[in-house]
């Protein structure tokens, strides 16, 4: 692959530089030969010819306008005449050559080929796990930011040159090379590293559904083992995508519906979820209180339909306001108003009495208008607004809204959660199915340990590479519990600021394992805590003395001598005990 790339670059260079190169060679040849043939005179007046080497030396400093003067001796008039000729032709030939070089560097085709080559070699050199992001719009850039925050490298492919330029200006803490190309061309997918052993997943986020489908299929063909995450809002494409193995379809509108549903039925879980995905301004333990009762749903497009579906599951049948809604379509018993959601129609839908309003149109100014009207007519109403454009963030922050759902942000968070800690979604689903008290307990524990700090999720595998000391301990048959691992090395009675969320053992998943859960070799544990606690935990897992102290409460002897002494003392002690 690299060879053919190199050939393309060489070919373009050769094609562009051939003529200026020949022009230079020709001018040099004529000038040098002429200079060597024209007779000169030495100081004594004898005829003397310039050697070819001296002629070349003379021509070099003349043609490049350096002009050292008449070397080795003063010239004759014939020589000077020829020197004038040499000067003009040489300088013109050089200008021509330099101009051609500059034109070549500015040639868009050449720069593209060069960029592609640099990009491919940068990707090839990535030594840590990375993700490919196809499509660098709102969602793509948020996802890239999220990956960077979690120290994961990314590779970005987007057909829009402006977006790739924008990428170069971001201050990511990790490698994030970008290529301006159409990712549905297989060559570019390969360049982006789809077959690279460290490539963890391909995330497809273009606005065009057909392109997305094409990229997903192509990525699967190029590397059947790769995970593909694809955004899709069209049912037709989703059906295609779901057929493919290892492809996850993310539908932003469905996620909206799920989040809303969660906010209504299990507000605490919704709060926990938002906190875990580091949603802006969310504090653990301060859950939203979404009222049940009459609702108004403005906008009944793809998202509105998901909203209605999930609200109906909880016995809420909102009045629908949408100019494009089909009145003949039998939805349910609720009121349907076929109009824009202005003051009049909102009043018609009974805004003064409703418990909540969803401003869910695909136009931000409409949504903000609905918010203003709602505030004027019913201050107590719970407001949920859909933010379409990421650039309008400041306005939505300023608006007095109970819940903002932003397509790009929720999608990016969901994908990030799926890529980095797929088990978290499993945990949320599990908590959703269980009794409310379990969520309350977990929130209480997390509040006690992490508190107001940013939650940090990480995963520990009890294998030799990641936890040498723990492996040794378990191989020796010493029983240890989850609590032992998270004890604080400074004070054994306290624990580190982290909570084990789940444990994977032989393919099985133990949700919210208890402190007294025994650990085994090969267990994978997902923790939520502070970054500091992760470092301390990793240190414990790799230091046999600290770990033994945490498990038993006794400082084990260090070194062969003290070990021997300890064993001897123990033996004599037990012998004394037997005698008495």
């Amino acid at each position, binding site marked *: 692959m690299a060879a053919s790339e190199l050939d393309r670059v060489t070919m373009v260079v050769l094609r562009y530089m051939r003529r200026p190169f020949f022009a230079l060679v020709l001018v040099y040849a004529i000038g040098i030969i002429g200079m060597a043939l024209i007779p000169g005179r030495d100081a004594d007046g004898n005829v003397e010819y310039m050697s070819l080497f001296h002629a070349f030396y003379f021509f070099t400093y003349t043609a490049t306008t350096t002009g050292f003067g008449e070397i080795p001796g003063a010239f004759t008039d014939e020589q000077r005449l020829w020197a004038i000729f040499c000067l003009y032709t040489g300088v013109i030939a050089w200008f021509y050559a330099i101009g051609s070089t500059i034109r070549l560097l500015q040639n868009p085709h050449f720069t593209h080929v060069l960029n592609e080559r640099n990009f491919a070699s940068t990707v090839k050199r990535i030594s840590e796990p990375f993700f490919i992001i196809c499509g660098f719009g709102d969602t793509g850039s948020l996802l890239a930011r999220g990956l960077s925050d979690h120290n994961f490298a990314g590779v970005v492919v987007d057909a829009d040159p402006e977006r790739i330029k924008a990428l170069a200006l971001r201050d990511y803490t990790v490698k994030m090379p970008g290529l301006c190309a159409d990712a549905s061309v297989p060559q570019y997918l390969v360049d982006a590293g789809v077959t690279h052993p460290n490539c963890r997943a391909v995330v497809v986020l273009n606005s065009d559904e057909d392109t997305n489908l094409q990229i997903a299929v192509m990525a699967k063909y190029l590397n059947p083992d790769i995970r593909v995450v694809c955004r899709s809002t069209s049912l037709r494409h989703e059906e295609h995508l779901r057929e493919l193995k290892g492809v996850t379809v993310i539908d932003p509108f469905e996620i909206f519906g799920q989040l809303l549903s969660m906010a209504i039925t299990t507000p605490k879980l919704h709060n926990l979820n938002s906190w875990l995905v580091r949603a802006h301004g969310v504090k653990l333990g301060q859950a939203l209180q979404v009222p049940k009762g009459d609702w108004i749903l403005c906008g009944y497009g793809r998202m509105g339909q998901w909203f209605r579906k999930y609200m109906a599951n909880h016995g809420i049948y909102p009045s629908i306001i949408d100019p494009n809604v089909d009145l003949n379509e039998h939805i349910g018993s609720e009121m349907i108003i076929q109009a824009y959601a202005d003051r009049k129609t909102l009043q018609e839908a009974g805004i003064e009495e409703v418990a909540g309003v969803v401003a869910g149109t695909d136009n931000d100014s409409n949504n903000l208008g609905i918010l203003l009207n709602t505030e004027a007519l019913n201050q107590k109403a719970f407001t949920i607004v859909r933010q379409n454009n990421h650039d309008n963030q400041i306005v939505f922050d300023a608006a007095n809204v109970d819940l903002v759902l932003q397509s790009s942000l929720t999608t990016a968070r969901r994908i990030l959660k799926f890529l980095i800690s797929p088990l978290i979604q499993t945990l949320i689903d599990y908590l959703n199915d269980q009794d409310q008290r379990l969520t309350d307990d977990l929130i209480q524990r997390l509040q006690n340990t992490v508190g107001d700090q940013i939650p940090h999720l990480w995963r520990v595998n009890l294998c030799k590479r990641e936890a040498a000391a723990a492996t040794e301990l378990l191989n020796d048959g010493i029983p240890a519990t989850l609590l032992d691992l998270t004890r604080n090395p400074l004070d054994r009675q306290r624990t580190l600021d982290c909570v084990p969320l789940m444990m994977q053992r032989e393919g099985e998943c133990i949700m919210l394992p208890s402190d007294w859960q025994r650990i085994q070799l090969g267990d994978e544990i997902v923790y939520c805590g502070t970054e500091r606690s992760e470092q301390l935990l990793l240190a414990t897992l790799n230091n046999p003395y600290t770990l033994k102290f945490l498990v038993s409460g006794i400082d084990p002897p260090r*070194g062969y*001598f003290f070990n021997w002494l300890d064993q001897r003392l123990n033996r004599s002690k037990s012998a004394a005990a037997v005698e008495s």
Partner: protein
Amino acid sequence: MNLERVTFGFFILLALTLNFVFVVGDIDNYRHHSVWILTIAILVNLIATGLKLGDRTQVGALLLAASLVADLLLISARIVWIVTNPEGGPGPSAEDMVTIVSLGIGALVANIVSAVILIGDTLMSRR
């Protein structure tokens, strides 16, 4: 308080101080440096090295390495002394004495590193 840590710390600090005792004085004057102190320093250093064997932590490995360096340098110094001052001579010449004491100072640095690591590790664990 842990008797093991006391013994361990005792030998490491004793190695350091004996090393210092040997090194202190004019660098080229054999009357300022006792060959007895040098020999005892080597002995204590070897004991300290022995106590460090078998510690499986990173810190333990570093301590052992520092100790081995000190042993090597002190034993070299002792060998130079033997070679340059055979049986009952008045003492090594000024040039030879400079070599011997320089080696001793090198060992002192390694011993200081050892002591700093020990103190740092103890402070970190704060138990």
